[in-house]
């Protein structure tokens, strides 16, 4: 008994120390300042999936601004630049970014620059200019900026990075809500939905809610087999095609 309680004490102290070090003590103590949740924690991509909307709602303990940051799973991505060679536009230089969120959108209750300063935006990676993408190559700043801008532009064109900030609507002083739209081509994986309460230019409370985007049903099974048992998938595709072709050929004869 003694040893058990002792161990717990040590664990507790260690956890407390970790919290203090990480500076997240504030978040736990003030957790009640902001409570937020999603209307659904799972986006199911079925065969008929055409995009969906998730409602984020929550409450604060008084006046203040709210920012919502939705970040998709971070994956590596390569940006390639085309140059004219012998009259043709051919990929030449490329830059690989290691930590590219596959999806990113922000919603705020007021324009961001009015509620919070640049250092805070950078610390919490709020807004596209503040996104840390983890470029692997060390390039000249101008070059890197061009590739970075191209990455964001391409993501925006695909509808995966928000073009403009969404709106967090307050109902009265404390209740807020916002709609987060996920397009049909939304990448699968574990998403992070972060709700931040901002007062006097400082983030005073934050809450992170997970959101899973996953293929469900027939399309999920197809994808799973294709990824994990590619040979089985290939054989099945060929057998299926031969059977379908045979059936079609037989039908032809009767017509």
């Amino acid at each position, binding site marked *: 008994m003694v040893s058990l309680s002792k161990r717990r004490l040590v664990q507790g102290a260690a956890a407390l120390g970790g919290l203090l070090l990480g500076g997240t003590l504030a978040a736990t103590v003030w957790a009640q300042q902001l409570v937020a949740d999603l209307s659904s924690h799972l986006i199911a*991509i*079925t*065969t*008929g*999936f*055409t995009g969906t909307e998730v409602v984020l709602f929550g409450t604060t303990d008084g006046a203040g601004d709210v920012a919502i940051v939705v970040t998709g799973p971070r*994956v*590596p*991505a*390569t*940006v*390639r*630049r*085309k*140059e*004219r060679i012998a*009259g*043709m*536009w*051919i*990929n030449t230089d*490329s830059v690989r970014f290691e930590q*590219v969120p*596959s999806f990113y959108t922000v919603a705020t209750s007021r324009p961001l620059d009015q509620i919070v300063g640049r250092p805070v935006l950078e610390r919490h990676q709020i807004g596209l200019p503040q996104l840390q993408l983890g470029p692997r190559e060390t390039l000249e700043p101008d070059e890197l900026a*061009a590739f970075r801008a*191209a*990455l964001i*532009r*391409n*993501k925006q*064109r695909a509808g995966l990075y928000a073009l403009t900030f969404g709106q967090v609507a307050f109902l009265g002083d404390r209740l807020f809500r916002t709609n987060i739209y996920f397009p*049909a*081509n939304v*990448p699968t994986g574990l998403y992070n939905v972060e709700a931040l309460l901002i007062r006097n230019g400082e983030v005073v409370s934050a809450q992170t809610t997970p959101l899973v985007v996953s*293929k469900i049903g027939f*399309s999920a099974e*197809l*994808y799973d087999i*294709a*990824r994990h048992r*590619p*040979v089985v*998938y*290939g054989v*099945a*595709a*060929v057998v*299926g*095609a*031969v059977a*379908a*072709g*045979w059936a*079609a*050929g*037989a*039908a*032809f*004869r009767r*017509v």
Partner: protein
Amino acid sequence: MQVYLPIAEMSVNALLVLGMGWLVGFLSGMFGVGGGFLMTPLLIFIGVPPAVAVGTQANQLVAASVSGVLAHWRRGNVDVKLGVVMLAGGVVGTALGVWIFAILQRLGQIDIAITLSYVFFLGTIGGMMLVESSRALIRRRAPTARRGKLHRHIWLHGLPFKMRFQRSKLYISALLPAGIGLVGGMLVAIMGIGGGFLLVPAMIYLLNMPAGLVAGTSLFQIIFTTAAATLLQAATNQTVDAMLALLLLIGGVTGAQSGTKMGSRLRGEQARLLLSCIVVAVALKLAWDLFARPEDLFTLTSGMT
């Protein structure tokens, strides 16, 4: 009606894809070609990643060539022995093609490689067909036909490993059909087409095969090269979308039925002239894309490539 494609990871309008399958099936029924050369650019045009378009197209062509070969088989228009020799080259060519495909994909040059090979092959074959068919049309009006030699001997016929093909009444080097098969197999893997538009003229002009056997034999061979390509693309590049292939197949089969009926009303040269115009038009469009300045000079590829 939207359908989510699990491998391409995008949502498409099912009716649009069915319609595209129907149109290409119609043309292939009318002209007796596979139609892959039209389908792959169309798929890329609606936003399917080129790699997925090529892999899926190979899968769809398996079904299309099986149903096509059945009709020829019943009429005995398939030279199995010659087909098998072509196939030996074809499988090697397919494996080679899939390997090259994977390398180009890693280098980020697969799109340009696909487009360039399209422009080259479609431009060359389409241009030759255009000249030939318009000449044939003119000749029909002014019949001063000179008969050429029945069988011209060129260096290709002096190659070793001679084999007798009874069905086609040929005694030629086995390297010749195997070589044609090899090129055909590479085309399947890199361009996602059966390669009929290249195989058929090669078999007629290089092998001097009887015309009646050419279509059936090339289709017979294409079944196996496209099957091998599907298998290899699925296993190495994971770019075969079964859902997309199914949609294309349904559209293609129904389209081919109407196309075949329509084709029987067209005369040979007219059909070839029409087909060559379409082929040249596709080649010109692709060439334009190659040389015109793209809207965005930067492209983005996600994942481990």
